[in-house]
């Protein structure tokens, strides 16, 4: 299994996809988390992401290893963005490639769910008149 783990200011989706291409894989599953315009009925202006980079990268590596133990995967890509992100911009990219689709679907779901629970990254939402850090997990 090959993995590509990164924290970056801008996610290049085409490049991220190319890292999943693999002659032994019959299925590639990707999830892209993007900035939406409403949260709890409040109009969001933009988001700002901050990471504890060293620990976040380590946690993302561990999640990739866990996924590779649970499913037969050939490639794993986990990329998270930091800094200011506008509506519709990608903030997280999860990709898995495997011989068959079941492993690719299940592992990508696992990776995004676990990332949201344990990886030390924080999101600040800015609305029309104020901004606030989001406390999601736990």
């Amino acid at each position: 299994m090959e993995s590509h783990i990164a924290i970056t200011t801008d996610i290049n989706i085409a490049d991220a996809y190319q890292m999943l291409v693999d002659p032994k894989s019959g299925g590639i599953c990707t999830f892209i988390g993007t900035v939406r315009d409403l949260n709890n009925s409040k109009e969001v202006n933009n988001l700002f992401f901050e990471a504890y980079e060293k620990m976040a990268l380590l946690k993302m590596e561990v999640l990739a290893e866990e996924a590779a133990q649970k499913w037969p995967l050939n490639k794993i890509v986990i990329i998270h963005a930091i800094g200011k992100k506008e509506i519709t911009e990608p903030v997280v990219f999860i990709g898995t490639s495997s011989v068959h689709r079941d492993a690719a679907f299940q592992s990508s779901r696992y990776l995004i769910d676990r990332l949201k629970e344990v990886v030390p990254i924080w999101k600040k939402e800015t609305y029309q008149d104020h901004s606030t850090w989001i406390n999601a997990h736990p």
Partner: protein
Amino acid sequence: MKVHAFGVAKDITGAAMIDFPMEETFVKVKDFKDLLYQKYPDLINLPSLAISVNLFYASEETVINKHDEVALIPPVSGG
């Protein structure tokens, strides 16, 4: 002891890196948190506050050496 602070914890402490006074070389996480809450009472109001030691989530019983890399981890919200 140098302590990293992130997200809302950084707003409460006022800095990304705080210099936390430690008399002893070793301290348990739970005792460190008590001292922390005395100095920054607003941290108590967070839904949770994890402590990482050398890039791993620590338990309340984990012993911190004052030279370890310690960070305040408020509830995460990536993705």
